[in-house]
């Protein structure tokens, strides 16, 4: 076998351990050590592969700066500074790898740094020097059962505690030097998953399958207290703050901070003080704390390394609140007993609020003094408050068509302009929306509850607060305004029923252009302009309170007689909760905010992590979020102002002084399929999509030189059992899953803010409560490049052929049938010798061939031999699946993957099986019989030591790539229809399940390998 020339460019996958060291975060990332300077924008300053195959499960740093890494049976000791950080990128750290005969569950340096202790999974400790000579072995007699967890606590050169977590609920604490048991701490149920000892050696913390954390007194061997809170298994614990605090990370994707409190050292309590939703879907494995900077770092199965501020959370100095009495006390304002705050807005200088009795009050941020500005009887009981912060203008409105506009001096000390207005056109007003109009003016929109009343928009001069122009538009049907955006001559008003009305101020008589029912939600909460592309399409982000967001590309006519056209180019739904708005931050990441029950959240939707959350009582409260200027060196990122229990709260949400993530990560669970958009590149990179066991599809792009992945979107439409995703053209992708879901997606790559993706159509299901899985699909396009036929195969042995009509955007069922009762795993549609062939492959290893040429209303095109043209008139009848023309048993059990390649004479099918085998079946056309016959020309029994999960033909049929659960990626050469292994390389992606290849413009092959994580290779 030739030397391997497959080269790894990048890898994203589970990180099992992290540690702060000096200015760095040192992480075990698969088999790599990755070191980040978290003060320098999280820059990756070093990456070294430490182990050939094993993942790094843990690490320790000695006082002399030596690094001990261990994982599985591998162990290595290097000098952190000399061997790694100060060395160039190509250090051969792998040469230090040593092997033990048993799994190493923990490792530590001795107090003097001259030895290492290695605790094995059979409760044995090896004491070794730094080059791997075993100095001695220590065990606890009679206690040699397997452990899931354990730790070593070095208290001094002589005093070392071994803390072994057994599988039967006991925590064994033993003394290393005397090899004697100190305690067997009993109380937990199930396997112990972590145990740790405080730095002073007095306390033990442990966690188990019972999901509790227990604190024990090491002297007395007594349980002091229990902490409940995690909703799944807890994987790691660490004491900090002199043993008064504990951090835990869990399978429930959270990192939690606990306070250990004692009442005169008699009773103890472990109180949950912080919960951070740090990782995606599932396991958080690693955690460390930097006490001086109040930072936690966590690492998880999603490949994310997350920094968390543990000071800010619930920090009282970031929040001030006032009751009406507090305000009274801090001023000379007298409030009535029932008087409450009805509205507020924040300016740079302070906060302006209005009460239920029409009192306008001001809170000055500099002097922290409340002051009564004025009282307006017109605004008693009902008022709404809006503002243009940039121009220090506040606008109050009531339900009787009155408006009050005030303009403040920039220090807020004086009211420079005041304007009161009354609208005679409306009988009543129940909504007022305000937005900047242009440099000189703002826009106020007023709506009455009467559907026959006009929708009034006032253009108001920013300096004089006088009306420049009044526009009266006819209200569309079922219109209830909820948000406003102004763009050029257009006024875009969001409404209930997920609708947007676009009014043209140049032509008030023209009825509004309506974009109806954007999604299944109700109230449109935010419309925001994003960008314009080269085709003069304008992109808007639209959010809906029920959790949906869309991006709409709108083309405005060049003159006012033309018509607006639009296209929804992106659709998605947030994970849970209500969505109040969204925007792109300065890094181009999409930030959403809203409520999850009583919690207000701000979320990075691009990378899927929470930026902040605040318990504030829920969406029905009075609340407003104020972003702070990003150009200023301000610590505060947002201010959230809300009223809860009659108190006005001002909560500052601070910017993290360090990056939120050092790696943003990908999926929380296994990648089931991966597909590259091969037809064209996007900004010199390739767009790709991964589908995961976590049911989401992720759209991203990767760099062909560095392999760096940029995340864009996480689509959450599938609800369970994702099976496949595949680009079928340069614009379309299909994904399929359980519950009989097959979604046709459309990609838009015309904008610079990123590629967008939306569902174009959904395949009809066979019943209202579908329980079938769509295992696979394949397509053949018509010559127009838009319409196609698609075969779908099902878990109940069903086979269907559909026609997709692009213009009508419908799927029409053409053929329906059932093969037998076995589950069908793969399907392929092929044009070969001017006929249309359907192949299916089953769980019992059969490959079945159908000739469907005469059963579809299409014929093979004479011009484009791989495409179809419409032939006969399409009738409504659904045709039964014809009998197969051939059935052959290729594998002993399931055909997991199938790939087809055609050369001039033959059609070749490559199959990979659950039986570890890869087969080549060559189909030849028999002129006399007018049909095809297949022969197995090559059958490699031991193509892997476990299930073959994917086969991809490349290099014009000369090579085949296979992945297998044995984590070996193999490249085969195909000569004379015989397979020959040409190279193989280990992948750190466990449960290796998917691969795709693209040949870039330099004729270099880029391999995407998915499993638990994603690797990008070059060949």
């Amino acid at each position: 076998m030739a030397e391997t020339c497959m080269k790894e460019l990048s890898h994203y996958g589970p990180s099992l351990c992290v540690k702060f060291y000096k200015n760095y975060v040192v992480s075990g990332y698969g088999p790599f050590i990755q070191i980040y300077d978290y003060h320098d924008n999280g820059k990756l300053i070093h990456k070294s592969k430490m182990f050939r195959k094993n993942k790094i499960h843990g690490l320790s740093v000695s006082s002399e700066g030596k690094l001990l890494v261990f994982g599985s049976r591998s162990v290595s000791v290097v000098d952190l500074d000399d061997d790694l950080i100060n060395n160039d990128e190509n250090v051969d750290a792998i040469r230090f790898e040593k092997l033990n005969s048993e799994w190493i569950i923990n490792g530590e340096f001795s107090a003097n740094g001259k030895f290492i202790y290695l605790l094995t999974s059979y409760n044995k400790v090896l004491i070794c020097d730094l080059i791997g000579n075993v100095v001695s072995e220590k065990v606890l007699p009679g206690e040699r059962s397997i452990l899931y967890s354990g730790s070593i606590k070095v208290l001094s050169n002589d005093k070392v505690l071994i803390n072994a977590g057994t599988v039967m609920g006991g925590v064994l604490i033993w003394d290393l030097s005397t090899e004697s048991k100190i305690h067997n701490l009993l109380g937990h149920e199930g396997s112990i998953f972590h145990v740790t000892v405080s730095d002073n050696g007095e306390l033990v913390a442990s966690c188990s399958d019972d999901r509790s954390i227990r604190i024990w007194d090491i002297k007395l061997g007594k349980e002091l207290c229990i902490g409940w809170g995690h909703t799944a298994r807890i994987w790691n614990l660490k004491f900090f703050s002199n043993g008064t605090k504990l951090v835990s990370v869990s399978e429930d994707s959270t990192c939690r901070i606990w306070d250990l409190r004692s009442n005169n050292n008699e009773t103890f309590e472990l109180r949950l003080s912080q919960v951070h939703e740090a990782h995606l879907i599932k396991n958080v494995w690693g955690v460390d704390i930097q006490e001086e900077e109040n930072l936690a770092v966590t690492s998880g199965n999603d490949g994310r390394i997350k920094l968390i501020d543990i000071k800010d959370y619930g920090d009282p100095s970031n929040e001030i609140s006032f009751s009406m009495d507090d305000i009274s006390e801090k001023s000379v304002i007298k409030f009535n007993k029932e008087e409450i705050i009805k509205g507020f807005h924040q300016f740079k200088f302070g906060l302006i609020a209005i009460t239920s009795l029409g009192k306008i009050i001001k809170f000055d941020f500099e002097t922290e003094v409340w002051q009564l500005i004025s009282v307006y009887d017109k605004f008693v009981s009902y008022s709404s408050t809006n503002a243009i912060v940039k121009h220090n203008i506040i606008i109050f409105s009531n339900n009787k068509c009155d408006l009050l506009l005030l303009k403040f001096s920039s220090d807020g000390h004086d009211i420079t302009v005041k304007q009161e207005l009354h609208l005679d056109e409306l009988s009543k007003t129940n909504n007022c929306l305000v937005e900047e109009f242009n440099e000189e003016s703002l826009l106020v929109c007023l709506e009455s509850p009467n559907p026959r009343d006009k929708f009034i928009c006032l253009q108001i001069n920013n300096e004089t607060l006088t009306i420049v122009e009044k526009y009266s538009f006819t209200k569309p049907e079922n219109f209830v305004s909820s948000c406003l955006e102004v763009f050029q001559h257009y006024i875009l008003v969001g409404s209930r029923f997920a609708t947007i009305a676009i009014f043209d101020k140049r032509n008030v008589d023209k009825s509004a252009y309506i974009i109806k029912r954007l999604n299944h939600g109700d109230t449109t909460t935010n419309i925001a302009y994003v960008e314009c592309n080269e085709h003069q399409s304008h992109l808007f982000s639209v959010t809906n309170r029920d959790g949906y967001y869309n991006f709409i590309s709108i083309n405005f006519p060049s003159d006012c007689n033309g018509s607006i056209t639009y296209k929804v180019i992106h659709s998605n739904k947030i994970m849970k909760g209500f969505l109040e708005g969204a925007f792109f931050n300065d890094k181009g990441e999409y930030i959403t905010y809203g409520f999850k029950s009583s919690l207000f959240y701000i979320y990075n939707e691009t990378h899927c992590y929470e930026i902040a959350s605040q318990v504030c009582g829920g969406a029905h409260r009075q609340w407003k979020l104020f972003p702070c200027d990003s150009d200023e060196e301000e610590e505060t990122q947002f201010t959230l102002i809300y009223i809860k229990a009659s108190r006005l709260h001002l909560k500052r949400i601070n910017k993290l002084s360090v990056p939120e993530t050092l790696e943003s990560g990908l999926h929380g669970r296994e990648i089931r399929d991966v597909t590259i958009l091969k037809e064209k590149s996007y900004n010199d990179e390739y767009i790709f999509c991964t589908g995961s066991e976590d049911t989401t599809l992720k759209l991203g792009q990767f760099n062909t030189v560095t392999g760096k992945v940029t995340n864009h979107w996480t689509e959450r439409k599938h609800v369970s059992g994702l099976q496949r995703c595949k680009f079928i053209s340069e614009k379309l992708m299909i994904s399929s899953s359980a519950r009989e879901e097959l979604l046709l997606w459309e990609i838009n790559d015309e904008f610079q803010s990123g590629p967008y993706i939306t569902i174009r159509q959904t395949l009809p299901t066979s019943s209202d409560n579908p329980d079938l899985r769509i295992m696979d699909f394949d397509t053949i396009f018509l010559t127009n490049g838009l319409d196609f036929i698609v075969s779908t195969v099902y878990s109940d042995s069903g086979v269907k052929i559909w026609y997709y009509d692009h213009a009508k955007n419908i799927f029409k069922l053409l053929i329906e049938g059932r093969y037998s009762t076995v589950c069908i795993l793969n399907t392929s549609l092929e044009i070969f010798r001017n006929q249309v062939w359907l192949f299916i492959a089953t769980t019992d290893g059969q490959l079945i061939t159908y000739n469907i040429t005469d059963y579809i209303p299409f014929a093979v095109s004479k011009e484009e031999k791989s495409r179809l043209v419409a032939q006969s008139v399409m009738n409504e009848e659904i045709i039964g699946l014809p009998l197969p023309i051939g059935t052959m048993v290729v594998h002993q059990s399931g055909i997991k993957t199938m790939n087809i390649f055609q050369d001039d004479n033959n059609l070749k099918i490559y199959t990979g099986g659950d039986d570890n085998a890869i087969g080549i079946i060559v189909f030849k056309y028999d002129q006399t019989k007018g049909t095809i016959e297949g022969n197995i020309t090559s059958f490699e029994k031991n193509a892997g030591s476990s299930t073959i999960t994917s086969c991809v033909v490349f290099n014009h049929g000369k090579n085949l790539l296979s992945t297998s659960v044995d984590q070996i990626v193999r490249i085969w050469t195909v000569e004379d229809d015989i397979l020959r292994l040409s190279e193989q390389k280990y992948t750190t992606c466990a449960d290796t399940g998917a691969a795709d290849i693209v040949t870039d413009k330099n004729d270099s092959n880029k391999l995407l390998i998915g499993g638990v994580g994603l690797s990008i290779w070059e060949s």
Partner: protein
Amino acid sequence: MGKSSKDKRDLYYRKAKEQGYRARSAFKLLQLNDQFHFLDDTNLKRVVDLCAAPGSWSQVLSKKLFNDTTLEQQNERKIVAVDLQPMSPIDHVVTLQADITHPKTLKRILEIFGNEKADFVCSDGAPDVTGLHDLDEYVQQQLIMSALQLTTCILKEGGTFVAKIFRGRDIDMLYSQLGYLFENVVCAKPKSSRGTSLEAFIVCLGYKPPSNWKPRLDVDFSVEEFFSTCNLNKLQISDKLQDWHEEERKIAPFMSCGDLQSFDSDATYRLDDFKGDSILSLDPVQSPTNPPYKKALELKRSGKLTRAI
């Protein structure tokens, strides 16, 4: 998933309920036997089921060894089922709640067998999975090696050992090690085991221990140390951490078990596929177990485990 929906999705679950098996895994042993016929041997006398709870394999063993057999055969036949968890009684099966790594357990089994060796040992045990694939695979292999260490003390030469495996990264290392102790090692996948699962079974035929090796269970020995006296290639202890080296690996032949009429465990069946069988939904045979996180579930149900503090 509703009760009847699971019946449709999982025919073996349904069949297990119909035939009174405690778990669907009973069919895995039945299908393995259809292929290898190790339970059809008329000379089969002493059988051990390790990690036996809830007991569906013991139920199969009981049926195979005691139904339609002569009284003479029955008098000679003994089945012992061992598990750390308690198990409800099964006809003709002696159940032991014991640790398979402990010498006392070995002694008790030998007592029941009248100090004769076993003809057949099986284990359908699997540990809790953590989600760390390498650790999960290691623990599973250690469980097999623990079962194997007891097996080497109790199995007669030429006897059979069957155990559940997960075909992950290092499965070929296990095949290689088993190759040193058995004439023939096959990786068998019954049709009742889902194709989407990595589960399979090693069927080890013809036990042939090294002639000079005396296996001895000792509470102070780890599994690794137990086998260190019997050169299984990788299993050696030294006074130095070894340099990295590739382990010996070998691919065991793969064999699919269960005939063409067997149900497909990955398929969704339609109600008319049952051809006159009753389509009534049956209650599960085995009542739910008592998980260690029972209290956490109760707290969660009562709203005490939440995100808000």
